[in-house]
């Protein structure tokens, strides 16, 4: 079974990668298995300077999902390049850097810095983090802002740019079209849905940040719907994510129009989820009549 997928700047031996923020910079999960098994790895978001993120509690459990409000805690782009990238570069897998910021300028700077560094194959432009006070989400819900940040980042970087879309919008297609027109090489979708849990004993929002991003199987139907809709209106490829926890789920994403997928929350329940899915995917593809992963892409669209 041919699992290989070629995307702008990324030649993947299989379409499975861990999602940004759910895999740190790979060190922890490398204790469980050989990261070379992965199609690629998407690093935790990077900002211009080190960020300490939100107060705790930062996570809550929900029905078939979870909320998180980490708040983009990360050591900053320079530290990531110096300390984390070399660790990942020892593996033979493409590294995708997740770029975040509070201002257009910060996005530009982070992208420029990654562009100058070695070993980074692509940027994932995170315009959809619901968990920081400024930046993030406003770029992700306004097509003009989204286009602008995409354009700026494209200008300062030669790396292919995958824009990560927020599902917290009424019209995902116009967001996708706007960033495609602005030069995006691909899309990454979806980020988390904005949600909240109230803690009964304390009678207040459980997360210190009050709201958090909903991820996990609960949001899979929203992800599938958005990818299905967007696929019909853009010609750039989509990295799909949102609630994947089995090889069958991966096929559902491929059929909806994703060319590759990322796996987030499921890593927490089962640290081996990525290699297990990679192992099962050939069977699932075959028993559904496909001879390659590529062949299934968009085949569910009628």
């Amino acid at each position, binding site marked *: 079974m041919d699992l290989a997928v070629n995307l702008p700047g990324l030649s993947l031996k299989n379409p499975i990668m861990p999602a940004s*923020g*759910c*895999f*740190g910079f790979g*060190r*922890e*999960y490398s*204790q*469980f298995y050989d990261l070379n098994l992965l199609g690629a790895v998407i690093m*935790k978001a990077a900002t211009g300077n*080190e960020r*300490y*993120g939100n107060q*705790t*509690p*930062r*996570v*809550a*459990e*929900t029905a*078939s*999902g*979870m909320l*998180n409000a*980490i708040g983009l*805690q990360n050591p900053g782009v320079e530290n990531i390049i110096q300390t984390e990238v070399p660790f990942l570069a020892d593996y033979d897998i493409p590294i995708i850097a997740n770029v975040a910021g509070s201002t257009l300028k910060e996005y530009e700077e982070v992208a420029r810095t990654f562009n100058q560094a070695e070993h980074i194959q692509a940027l994932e432009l995170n315009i959809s983090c619901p968990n920081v006070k400024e930046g993030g989400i406003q770029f992700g819900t306004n097509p003009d802002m989204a286009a602008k940040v995409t354009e700026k980042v494209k200008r300062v970087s030669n790396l292919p740019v995958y824009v990560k879309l927020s599902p917290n919008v009424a019209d995902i297609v116009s967001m996708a079209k706007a960033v495609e027109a602005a030069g995006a090489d691909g899309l990454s979708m979806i980020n988390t849905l904005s949600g909240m849990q109230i803690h009964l004993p304390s009678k207040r929002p459980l997360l210190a940040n009050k709201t958090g991003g909903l991820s*996990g*199987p609960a949001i899979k139907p929203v992800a599938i719907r958005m990818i299905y809709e967007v696929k019909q209106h853009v010609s750039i490829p989509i990295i799909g994510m949102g609630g994947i926890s089995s090889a069958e789920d991966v096929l559902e994403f491929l059929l909806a129009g994703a060319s590759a997928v990322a796996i987030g*929350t499921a*890593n*927490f*329940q*089962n*640290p*081996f989820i990525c290699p297990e899915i990679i192992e099962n995917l050939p069977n699932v593809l075959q028993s559904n009549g496909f001879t390659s992963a590529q062949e299934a892409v968009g085949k569910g669209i009628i």
Partner: protein
Amino acid sequence: MMKKLEVEVLSSTDIALDTMEMELKSEYICKHAVPGQFLHIYVEGHTLRRPISIADVDKFNNTLTILFKKVGSGTEKLAAYQPGSRISVLGPSGNGFDYIGVESSTVLLVGGGIGVPPLYYLGKALAEKNVKVISVLGFQTGASVFYEEKFKQLGDTYIVTNDGSYGSRGFVTDVLWDIAEIDRYYSCGPLPMLKAVCTELPHKEGYISLEERMGCGVGACFACVIPTDDNGGYKKICKDGPVFAAHEVSL
């Protein structure tokens, strides 16, 4: 090193109000676990695993004990697992209590409620090293008290309950003045208790075990951080902890 394991439930017993003692079989964990480490337990139907301390290890029989309180849907469900069933755990996780050079000293264990479990395994390990162990265990009420006899076998043990229905009335800190000279303390329990203990014993070497809501439980997601004393730094409770030197973190 932490592994993902399927372990068998050997027994599950009610030992106090809403409190379960569960015996598990795992050669790997028994071989590698040190006091203060925890298991990250998968409970069917739940997105996130539950962190539960290792309360005792029997290296001879390769069995280990966890003690937990039924506080929500996950622990309720865990309590319903029958002997013979298998549960998935990650472990042993985190860093345990530091007790190098502790020989022939006097240590104080201060546990609050469901913070008591990791101290038992620690106390046993210390007692084996001929350390003099004094335990102060706080509970909400008499019905919640567990492991009193077991701690007594390790050394002097004071029980405190908030409502005075068993032992002395009040908080663990109310009996600390009563305690003879100690060289070092270890504490686990609710945050207000840990703060109070650290404040009461400012000049002693102390180690505390912290709790926080976890995502991954392995250090990858930044859910469980705690600020450290040096400005702006932070540690991950699941990976750098759950045990920290008292001066290391800002509560």
